[in-house]
């Protein structure tokens, strides 16, 4: 089953995150952003996300905020499609996802991205001094 990545965010954060990832890691494949814009209702957004889905693929969905409309919409669609959802999407996760997509199962990638998430927030100057705050 083909794995695809869907980035679902408030505003164009996801679209720009893909552009930023491509700036560092080159052109991405099998990745799409669906942006929730100011005047869209939940129903509009539901339709927009649904248009990106098909029953033959498995999706790793990366979203920004638990409890927000993008996340809730994905939960709603998870009843009808093969969807996994991670929240807290950031650049390290997307970089890693783009280089790992196509290798292994969605389960493996999901687990790996949560490790990447946990490893990439820390106090930089403290780390340089050898202190390992939060990491």
């Amino acid at each position, binding site marked *: 089953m083909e794995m695809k990545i869907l980035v679902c965010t408030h505003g164009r954060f996801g679209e720009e995150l893909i552009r930023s990832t491509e700036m560092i890691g080159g052109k991405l494949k099998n990745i799409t952003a669906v942006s929730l814009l*100011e*005047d*869209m*209702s*939940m129903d*509009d957004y539901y339709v927009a996300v649904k248009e990106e889905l098909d029953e033959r693929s498995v999706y790793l969905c990366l979203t920004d*905020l*638990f*409890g*927000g*409309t993008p*996340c*809730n919409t994905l*939960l*709603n669609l998870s*009843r009808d499609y093969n969807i996994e959802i991670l929240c807290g999407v950031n650049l390290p996760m997307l970089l890693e996802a783009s280089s790992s997509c196509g290798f292994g199962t969605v389960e493996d990638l999901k687990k790996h991205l949560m490790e990447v998430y946990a490893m990439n927030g820390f106090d930089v100057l403290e780390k340089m001094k050898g202190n390992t705050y939060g990491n």
Partner: protein
Amino acid sequence: MAIKLVRVDFRLVHGQIVTKWIHTIKADTILVVNDKLANDPFMLSVYQMSAPLGTKVNVVAVDDFIKHWHETKYDETNCMILIKNVDDVYRIYKGGVSFDAIQIGGLGGSASRKAVFGPITLDKTDADRLQEINDSGQRVYFHQVPEDGSAEFNSVMKGIHFD
């Protein structure tokens, strides 16, 4: 204890905005009046899980809301009411329910709708119905987020015309 706020918001339980209002009015329950959600326990559980800490989320169908309002006025609750659109507000009004005030927080956008206050839009049907409710003595006003200003229905509608 009673209904602290009645808000019309096309996104219903929409994270930050609802959290801000809940804290502002010090309610402990969000009561969503919506037929579709009343028949979707899965999505209700999604909203319940993502609600701010200490806040309950309940749902009731429009007709059941009207019935229960006539019985108790919801005096047993300390809640914020969320309604999705003016159609449902009007059904509730026609069902004999009378609120002190109705806050219009967001109604979405489409080609047939006109922005009347910030990003809040109305079409002619919405405007006529809200006018009728406002004229009946229930205060209708526009207010998106607590930090921004609000405006009364009549002052906003002055100078707004639908073809």
